[in-house]
């Protein structure tokens, strides 16, 4: 049984861990968030020991302590059963000052499904400094926008038609693509990076065609931001330059496709086919 306890700088490691387990082939994961104050008399080691004994058959829990506020416990295996065991442990160890809190176990969730929401919420706790280069570009979101984005993400699978976002600064290109895509998809468009970011947050598109060279900046920056933030993102870069550096940057950002302008019906259809394959039931579980 592997247990890891980290007292400081835990949030980035926690985010990395969640992003790691949100990928395919990891099986079922569960997560419980526990109010640390409920277990105040227990040291971290004592809590880990209690968890270790109680969840001996529950897989491999990993425990993260976020200062004095919360404890995150992850485990692989039967999510609901292990969660019930975990809750029993917490309730048996309760020693909160001023009586028993009504809800010591704050949350239970499936990180494979809710990894994006969780990571965004955790990132909001980090000190207010740029975490990545892309955040210098002003791709920020208030809590209301993040909450809305999470809600819309949940609707992705139930959409009648996948939603595609077309980002290009030229109305001519937007119209060609939009009219073509409207035959089979719902389509939103944006002409600038900032418009695109706002639209992305509001709509959580299933697929984004993103021009590299835009009036207010570089599409690679937004692509990087989207791919970092949204594990369910499917982004195809579109460029009239076709420079090697653009292709390398697209690879580095782990985008899902790259189309050189002028595009034609074959390469757009090819791209849409690959998108459809990535969402096919055979690959269920690939994207939260």
């Amino acid at each position: 049984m592997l247990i890891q306890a980290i007292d400081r700088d835990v949030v980035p490691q926690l985010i990395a861990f969640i992003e790691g387990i949100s990928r395919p082939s990891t099986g079922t994961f569960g997560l419980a968030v526990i109010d640390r104050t409920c277990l105040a008399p227990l040291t971290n080691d004592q809590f880990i020991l209690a968890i270790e004994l109680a969840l001996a058959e529950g897989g491999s829990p990993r425990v993260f302590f976020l200062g004095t506020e919360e404890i995150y416990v992850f485990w692989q295996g039967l999510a609901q059963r292990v969660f019930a065991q975990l809750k029993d442990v917490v309730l048996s160890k309760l020693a909160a000052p001023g009586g028993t809190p009504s809800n010591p176990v704050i949350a239970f969730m499936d990180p494979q499904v809710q990894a994006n929401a969780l990571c965004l919420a955790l990132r909001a706790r980090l000190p207010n400094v740029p975490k990545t280069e892309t955040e210098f570009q002003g791709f920020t979101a208030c809590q209301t926008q993040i909450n809305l984005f999470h809600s819309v993400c949940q609707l992705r699978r139930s959409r009648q038609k996948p939603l595609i976002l077309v980002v290009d600064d030229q109305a001519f290109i937007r119209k060609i693509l939009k009219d073509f895509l409207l035959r089979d998809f719902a389509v939103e468009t944006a002409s600038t990076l900032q418009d695109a970011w706002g639209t992305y947050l509001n709509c959580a598109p299933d697929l984004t065609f993103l021009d590299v060279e835009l009036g207010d900046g570089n599409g690679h920056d937004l692509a990087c931001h989207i791919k970092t933030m949204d594990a369910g993102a499917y982004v195809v870069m579109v460029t009239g330059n076709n420079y090697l550096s653009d292709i390398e940057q697209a690879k580095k950002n782990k985008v899902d496709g790259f189309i050189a302008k002028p595009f034609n019906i074959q390469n757009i259809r090819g791209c849409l086919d690959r998108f459809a394959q990535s969402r096919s039931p055979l690959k269920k579980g690939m994207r939260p």
Partner: protein
Amino acid sequence: MSDIVNLDNLRALTDGDVDTELELFDLFYESSAECLAALKACLETGEGEIWRKQAHALKGIALGLGAQELGDLCKQAQDQWEASLDTKQKMLAEIRDCQENVETFLRNVHGV
């Protein structure tokens, strides 16, 4: 001699819809005029980066339309964004002439 615009790709994408095609032509007239005006302004201000971006923009529209020659001239202007004023004036004149030919061609396609 081949046409200055090859509409095959555009028509495949628009499924041959005439109204859509006319709307796209209008967007071409409008957008290309804006790009040409911006390129001309760059000659006065000496803004190399804006020159490059506008040439890039017009190249994208031209190639999307099927105007290969215009696209090639714009690519040349984009790549030579650091060229001398004299060279840029010549490039812009060629682009303008070609854009006019493309516009004339498009206006004759559907007789409007």
